Structure formats: C-alpha cells, structure tokens
C-alpha cells in the first residue's frame, strides 16, 4: 500500500505543471491533464488489487508530521479502507473518463482559444483536493480537501468569467457552500474540544465511550456535521447553488456537480456514522432532509427548459435518496447508490455535453427535438442513463441501488419516508423521460453535427456499460467499515412485492411522460396556459422559489444592516485621527521651506532648546 500517496500526487503535479505553464500547446496540456488522472487511475487499480488480495482492513500512511503543538500531534496521513477505496475508485475512474471527454469537449468549445491549460489545471487540482478529502485520516485534512474542492468548484463555475452572470453564479456557489463549511468547522471544534483529537478513527472509537445514545453533545456534533454535508451536497435548505453551478463547462458539471464533489456530504456522514448513530434525532433529520429535497428537486426538474438544469435537479434528488438511505441507517446502500449514481449521472452529463456541442451551444430542450436520427450514440447513452436514473427494472444499475434504498426505508420502519421516496421515483421517471422525449423525439428544429473521435466515444460507451446492470454487479467492499443497520421487520416476500411495486411505478412514470410529451403535447400546453397552471409552472421552475425567499429573508436584511453600518459613528469618531494626522502633516510640511537659512535657524534654535533643557532638567 506504500504507493497510496501517488494517487493525490499525480493530479497535484499535473495541476502545478499546468498552472505554471499557461501557454502550453493544447495537445500537451491535454496530455498532462488527462494523463495525470490516468496515472492516478492506474494507481487506483493497483490499490484495488492489493486491497482485495490483502486483509481488507484500513491502512494508514503517514507522510509527515503536519502539526505539532505541545502534545497535540497531527500527521499528514492518508487512510485507506473500503469506504475511501470506493470513493477513490469513483473519483479517479469516473474522473479519468470525464477528463478524457473534456479533452474533446474543451477543444470543440474553445475552438483554439486560450484557457485550455487553465481548465485542466483547475480540474486536476480538483481531483487532488477531492482525493485528500476522502483519504484524509483526520478531519483537518478532510477539511483541507473540503475547502479545496470548494475553491475549484468556484473557479470552474466561473470558468467563462468574461460573462458576468457566470461570476455571480460562482459567487453564489462559494458563499452558500461556505455557510455549510462554517457548520462543519464548528463541528470540528466541538469534536476537538470534546476528545482532543481530530483523527477520525480515534473519534469513532472514543465517541461511543463518552456519549450515550441521544446525548445533547452528540446531537449537536452530528447536527454541525450535517450542516456541512447539506451545504456541500446541495440539500435543503442550502440547495440553491447547484442549479446555478451549471454555468461551468459541462464536463465540470459531470465531474464536480454530479459525480464527485456533491457526494462529499454523503461521504462525510457515512464516514462519521458512529456519531450519527448516537444522535437519533439528527439521523431522523438526515432522512427527512433527503426526502424533502428529492421531492422539491423532482418537481423542479419537471419544469426546467435547460437540459443541464434538469440534470442538476435530478442530481439533487438522487443525493436526496442517498441522504434518505443514510437517515434510515442503510449506510452501505447509500454508498452503493453514490457509486451507481456517479456512473449514470456522469454519463448523462457527458452526453448532454455532446448534445450541446452538437447543437451549437444550444441548451434549451425545446429548441432541440428529433435528435435521435442524427445523434445515435448520444441517444443510446441518454436512454441507458435515463433508464438508470429512473431505475427501470432489471436492466439498469439505478434499479438495484434505488430499490434497495426504498426497501430498507420500508423495512426499517420509516413508512412515510418510503412513501415520499416512492413518489419521488415516480417523478424521476416522468421528468427524465420528458427530457428524453423532448430532446430526441418530435420535430427536428436544429441541424446537429455529431461528435467524433475516441475521446468522445470511449468515455460515453464505458459509462453506458457501467450504467446498466453491469455496474450494479460491482459491490463496494464496505463490510468492515459500515455496520449493517438495524434488523428488518419484513421478509423476502414483502421485499419482492415492494420491488415489483417500485418497478411498476417507474414504468408508469415513463408511460405518463410518453403520453404527455410525445407527439403534440397538447394537454401539457393547455394546462400551462391556464392561470393556475402557469403559476404552478413558474413555482416549480424556480424550484419552490427558494431563491426569492432567501433574497427576502437573508440577503436583503443583511444588506440593510450593512447599509446601517456605513454610517458608523464609532468609525466617524475614528476618522478624526487621520484628520489630525493630515493637519499636523500640513503644518510640518510648511517647515520644509527649502531655504538654507531657515534650516540653519531651526537647527540653532533646536540646539539652544536642547541645551537649555539639558541644563534645566
């Protein structure tokens, strides 16, 4: 395992090389950017091989002593167990495919313009930070990665910074997630104050000894961690930034805002699951947040016109499922869903990128239509990805993970959550196939040019294969890391019944979508044209108007307070001093007349004064 450190090292080197050579030719920059992740992926494969061949236990690799204050020691240490290995595999594996695709996408997108190296520098830095996040053996290192991915997310959302709107979107993402980060930091302080260490494994060992189930401190610590997770994973109530984060290039959306970074919150909760188990109220809150988010996002996705925004809301809702799974203590299933989600969501985003480029940067789905004849590969990919997203039975990867979540929610006795999730599954298949039908069926409105080349095809095909049941056959090695959860109440027959129910719901959703959106869409149009329909549509389109609400409740009062402080009388009192200084400056400057006799006179006067004082004192 001693080559563990190479995984984050390669992306870091790539980022440094690209950052300091911004004028590298595109070909070489692409080679460096993609190659570094490729090397990291190779290391990942090696790690997997040795991990399965070995004892299947956690391994720590301390690179150097990072902090040493009195008896507080913290190493710059990486920790590898089943959970982090799963995450590393997703990050480097899916990350490599996305990088490869990005090499094609950015070349088409920039058309030889500058910024190619910059893009890959950011992307590599992101992968490095994300690897630190999942590999860090203490919360401090995790936090470093956490902030690092936040920074890269900011940089990449604002990648097209010439457009001011994008810069504001980047600001929004940065600030909103920062609120979550503050909670996480407070949580870290809390844990450190309680246990005097930030080492995660030690914390997990010490916490059950110190706290009983439902202890106030345990609830508080879990709540703070949850705050951080909610911010990063775009869950209610800090979900508003994710849809705007689509301002970045599409591979960025695929990598950061779908496959990896936004799942950091899920990882954090899974990693610190012991603390959450000690805090049943907070754990319940996790499930509730998950359910609410998946419903809100599901409705919002129904009313989007931008292909990427549909996918963004679907991401939000899928992470909602993961949170729900965490909330019902189906830890390993949450991670399993995280993995399959990474496959099919990356696939969907990359395909949408391919479609967008093919349609000359058009993102409005109502201006596309009928693309299935010209864009055969993207169509196939979208079908597979969409099937996985809406968990169509048996053939798709999403089915195996999502139905497991639904079943366990029911099995662990959370009937309401189960109902919500089931309804969410229905919504999912409706909006997914709404998008597919609008984009690929119907009347052709645009003349696309299909993407070419290996860098375009290979990632799509690999991800498409992984999004089918093939992907679901990969089982993350989580047995030693995450507990199995409480005993179920129901038997196999109930499980089978529920699975059939979920499958039926999904298929019905597809059917309804077909009925509404295939053909002339007369019914939908007439519904939207009514007054209530229009209002509802707008309500959904703005994702339940959270932005409006926050603007009223948070931003405006904040600005108001800010304005109040502009007329700070304490400050104006302080401003007297500069005035005094300037006055003295004016007076003293007058002594610099430039006249020699005046200088001599002052010197003599000074000498007399000095000597007199000397005699008198």
């Amino acid at each position, binding site marked *: 395992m001693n080559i563990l450190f190479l995984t984050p090292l390669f992306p870091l080197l790539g980022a440094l090389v690209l950052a300091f050579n911004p004028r590298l030719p595109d070909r070489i920059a692409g080679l460096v950017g993609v190659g570094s992740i490729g090397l990291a992926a190779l290391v990942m494969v090696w790690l997997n091989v040795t991990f399965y061949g070995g004892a299947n236990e956690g391994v720590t690799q301390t690179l150097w002593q990072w902090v040493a204050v009195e008896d507080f020691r913290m190493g710059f240490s990486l920790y590898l167990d089943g959970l982090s290995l799963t995450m590393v595999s997703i990050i480097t594996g899916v990350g490599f495919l996305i990088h490869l695709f990005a090499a094609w996408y950015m070349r088409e997108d920039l058309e030889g313009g500058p910024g190619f190296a910059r893009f890959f520098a950011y992307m590599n830095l992101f992968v490095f930070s994300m690897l630190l996040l999942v590999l860090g053996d203490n919360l401090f290192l995790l936090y470093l990665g956490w902030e690092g991915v936040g920074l890269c997310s900011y940089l990449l959302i604002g990648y097209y910074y010439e457009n001011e709107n994008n810069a504001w979107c980047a600001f929004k993402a940065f600030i909103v997630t920062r609120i979550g980060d503050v909670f996480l930091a407070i949580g870290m302080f809390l844990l450190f104050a309680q246990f005097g260490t930030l080492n995660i494994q030690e914390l997990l060992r010490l916490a059950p000894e110190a706290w009983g189930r439902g202890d106030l401190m345990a609830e508080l610590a879990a709540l703070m961690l949850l705050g951080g997770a909610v911010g990063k994973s775009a869950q209610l109530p800090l979900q508003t930034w994710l849809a705007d984060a689509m301002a970045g290039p599409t591979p960025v959306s695929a990598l950061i805002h779908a496959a990896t970074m936004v799942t950091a919150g899920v990882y954090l909760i899974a990693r610190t699951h012991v603390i959450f188990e000690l805090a049943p109220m907070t754990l319940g809150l996790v499930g509730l947040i998950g359910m609410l988010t998946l419903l809100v996002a599901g409705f919002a996705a129904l009313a989007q016109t931008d292909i990427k925004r549909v996918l963004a809301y679907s991401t939000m809702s899928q992470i909602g499922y993961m949170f729900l799974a965490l909330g019902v203590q189906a830890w390993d299933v949450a991670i399993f869903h995280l993995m399959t989600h990474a496959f099919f969501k990356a696939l969907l985003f990359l395909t949408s990128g391919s479609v967008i480029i093919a349609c000359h940067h058009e993102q409005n789905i109502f201006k596309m239509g009928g693309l299935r004849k010209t864009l055969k590969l993207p169509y196939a990919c979208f079908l597979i990805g969409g099937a996985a997203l809406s968990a169509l039975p048996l053939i798709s990867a999403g089915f195996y993970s999502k139905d497991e979540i639904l079943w366990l929610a029911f099995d662990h006795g959370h009937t309401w959550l189960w109902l919500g999730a089931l309804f969410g599954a229905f919504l999912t298949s409706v909006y997914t196939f709404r998008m597919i039908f609008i984009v690929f069926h119907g009347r052709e409105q645009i003349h696309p040019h299909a993407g070419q080349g290996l860098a375009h095809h290979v990632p799509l095909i690999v991800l498409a294969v992984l999004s089918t049941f093939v992907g679901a056959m990969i089982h993350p090695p989580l047995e030693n890391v995450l507990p199995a959860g409480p005993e179920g109440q129901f038997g196999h027959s109930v499980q089978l019944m529920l699975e059939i129910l979920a499958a039926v719901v999904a298929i019905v959703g597809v059917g309804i979508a077909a009925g509404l959106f295939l053909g002339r869409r007369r019914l939908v149009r007439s519904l939207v044209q009514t007054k209530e329909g229009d209002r509802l549509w707008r309500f959904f389109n703005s994702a339940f108007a959270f932005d409006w609400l926050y603007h009223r409740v948070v931003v405006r009062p904040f600005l108001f307070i800010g304005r109040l402080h502009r007329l700070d009388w304490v400050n104006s009192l302080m401003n007297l001093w500069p005035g005094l*200084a*300037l006055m*003295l*400056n004016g007076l*003293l*400057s007058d*002594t*610099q007349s*430039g006249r*020699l006799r*005046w*200088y*001599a006179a*002052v*010197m*003599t*006067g*000074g*000498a007399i*004064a*000095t*000597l007199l*004082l*000397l*005699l008198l*004192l």
Partner: protein
Amino acid sequence: MNLTLSHLIALLPLLIVCVTVIVVMLGIAWRRHHVVTASLTTIGLNAALVSLLAVLTVTPIRVSPLLLVDNYAVLYMALILIAGLASTTLAHAYLEGFDDQKEEFYMLLGCSVLGGLTMVASDHMLSLFFGLELLSVPLYGMAAYAYRTRLSLESGIKYMVLSAAASAFLLFGMALLYAESGSLAFADLGARLTEGGGHASWLLMGIGMMVIAMAFKLSLVPFHLWTADVYEGAPAPVTAFLATVSKIAVFALLMRLFMSAPVTDIASLHTIVAIIAFLSMMVGNLMALRQDNIKRLMGYSSIGHLGYLLTVVVASDDLALLTTGIYLITYVATTLATFGVIALVSSPWQGSDVASLKFYRGLFWRRPYLAAVMTVMMLSLAGIPMTAGFIGKFYVLATGVEAQLWWLVAGVIIGSALSLYYYLRVMVMLYLHPTEEEQYDASSDWGQRAGGIMVILLALAVLVLGIYPQPMIMLVSSAILG
C-alpha cells in the same frame, strides 16, 4: 608605540580601502575607464570585507589610543563595507549614462567608506572627529555629483553648510569635555563627574553639543530639516549610501559613546534623547504622509526609523546593543534595496532621477521583479511580520518594554501605524494600472546587471531574515559579547 603584526592585521580593512582609493586615483590619472575603476573599487571593498575574517583572529585589540578594533567594530565594518559595495554596484549602473567624468565618484565613495570604518572603531574623540569628517566631506561632493542638475547641486551645498555647522558643535562640545576632563578618550570622559568634582554644567554642555552634532548626522528632530532636500537632490546611489553608511557609522559610534563614556550617565541627557526620539518618530512619519516624491518619502521615513532606534540609546543596556545590531542590519538591507530599485528605475542617468511617485504607477505590469522587491521592502519598512523589518521593530519594542520606556514604546506603535499609510500607498501605486502618461522605466536589461541581482538578493535576505532570524541574532550577540 610599537606596531606589531597583529596591529597591522587589525588595521587591514582600513589599509586596504586606503590603498584602493589611491590605486583608483592613480588609475584615473593614468587612463579614464569607467568599468575598470568600478571594478577596482569593488575588488578593494571585497578584499576589505574578506580581511575582516583575518581581523577576527586578533580582536579585541587596541591600536594606538585612537582605535579599538573589537567584534562590535568588525560587525559594523562589515555592514558599512556591504553598503559601500551595494552603492558601488548601483552607481555603476547609474553612471553609465552620466555625461561627465564618472570615475571620481568611486574615489569619493572609497574615502567616505574609510571614514565610516574609522568611526565604528574609534574609541577616542580625535578618531571620532577624523572619521566623521572623512565620512562627510566626500559626501558633499557625492551629493552634488550631478552638479549640472540644480537639485543635486542644491542638496550638496545644503548638506555641506549644515554639516559644517554640526561639526562646529561637535568640536566645541569636545573642547568643553576636554577642558573639564583633560582627556579625549571615551572612557576618561567625565570620569571626574563620578568623583564629584568639576563643573557639571560644562560637561553637560559638552556632551549635549556632541549629541546635537550626531543628531544632525542621524537627521533627528529638530535637526532634520536637511534630510528630505538632500535625499531628494542627491543621485539615487548617493542617497542609498548616505542613508546607510553614514547612519550606521554615526549610530554605532553614538552607541559606543553611550555605553562606554561615564559622562553619558546623566539622567537629563537620557531624557533629552528620549524627547528627541519621540519627536523624531512623530515628525518623521507625519511628514511622510502625503509625500509624492519617493526619495523625500524615504528621507522622512528614515527620520522616523532613527527615532525608533534611538529608543535603544535611552535604554543603553545589553539588549540595546543587540537591538542596535539587528535593527541596523535589517534597516540597511531594506533601505539599500529600496534605493536600489529607485536607482535601477532611474538608471542609466538621464538628467534626473525618477523620484515622483506617479512614475511608479503600474511598475508591476512592466517590471514585475522590481515591483516585487519594492513591495517586500515597503512591507519590511512597515514592520510587517515575515520580513526582517518586523524582527528589528520587535527588538526595539522589546528593549523599550524591558527598560520601561512606555512613552517611547507608545511612540513606536503610533509611528508604525502612521507609517503603514504611506508605505502601503507606495505599494498600491506599484500595482495600479499604468496610465498613458510618459513613463520612466528601468532599462530592459536591468536583470542582467549586477544591480538587479543585488536588489533581488537583498529582498530574499529580508524575507529569509524575517522568517528565520536566528543566525542574525546569533551573529550580533556574538559580536557584542566579544
């Protein structure tokens, strides 16, 4: 008196510089050649610097009643020689474009360095006066070197007249002290004061006059008015020299005087020095606030800095000696690099220096390295942590606190707060977008020139000493113990 070999070794740096000056003079007489002359000077000063290693083997040693070569002297000799070398380097780049005789400059510089070396080793009134004059007289010529420029000539004459007046004070003070004590050696001065006899007032007047003269050389309030005009008018390398060598030499001597002469153990003298220090901190920093000429600004800032440093004279304890060394090292490195940048931007000479702050607007976008050096220097002058200036200021504060000089500590703090304003103003100016106006610029091959390398090295030194000051502190403390 018998001169032994070890005496000669102790005098080596002085002898080498002396020989250098003569060789340079003969060289000029034989054939004028700018590069050769500058190289000869550089070689000579370097040789003197190396010879300090030999001197260390015989220290401490008294050479005649006039000179005492100890580790303290060697430290400041090294500092003076380095400053002299830096000025030589800058002058070489600067004088390239000078349309008059260039070579005599190095002769004057060598003489002045010789005077400085004599001063820091002097333990006697005679060598003090001799050194001070040898230091100052060539400086008049150097300040007025670009004498066809009105400002340069003006600065030379102003400095000469006022400096002569200050020398008169010094001489009269020495005469009074001699009359009362019958000796010119520092250690004997005011020895009778402790015995209780004699006219205390005369002694007081004598030492007071000497302090006035040195306060003039150090440009302390109220003897500071010449500073800005001379700094502004003198060519940039000369200003660099004036701001470093003459300050090091005079301050080192003042410190030695206060540490070794019993006559300075008078309470009222310390009060006076404290008042001068406080006034200097305030006045220097206040005057710099709205200054638009960077050379004048540095002049005012030097008034403030010497004010801070004067705190240690008031304290006059062992920590004060340490502080003096550290502060002077950091101050000299910072000042040299600052004037180095000014000189490089003004090089080669084109009739006048680039001193107005507006010409530095957007320097970063044209000469990023120079601007970076300037930035570090401004931070160091302001005493921001991670730079050498912080260490110096920290030690001054430590000295002040230990000696419980609360007024002076307050003065240092207020002065630093004021100074931030104008240092940051310079920094901001460097990074603004350049205007369309006429812009002066360092000649594009400045990086190849020794001067460019030198300022970058100085900037690195300032950063390294700021982050890892231990070697410097060890060096200085070994110097004051030896």
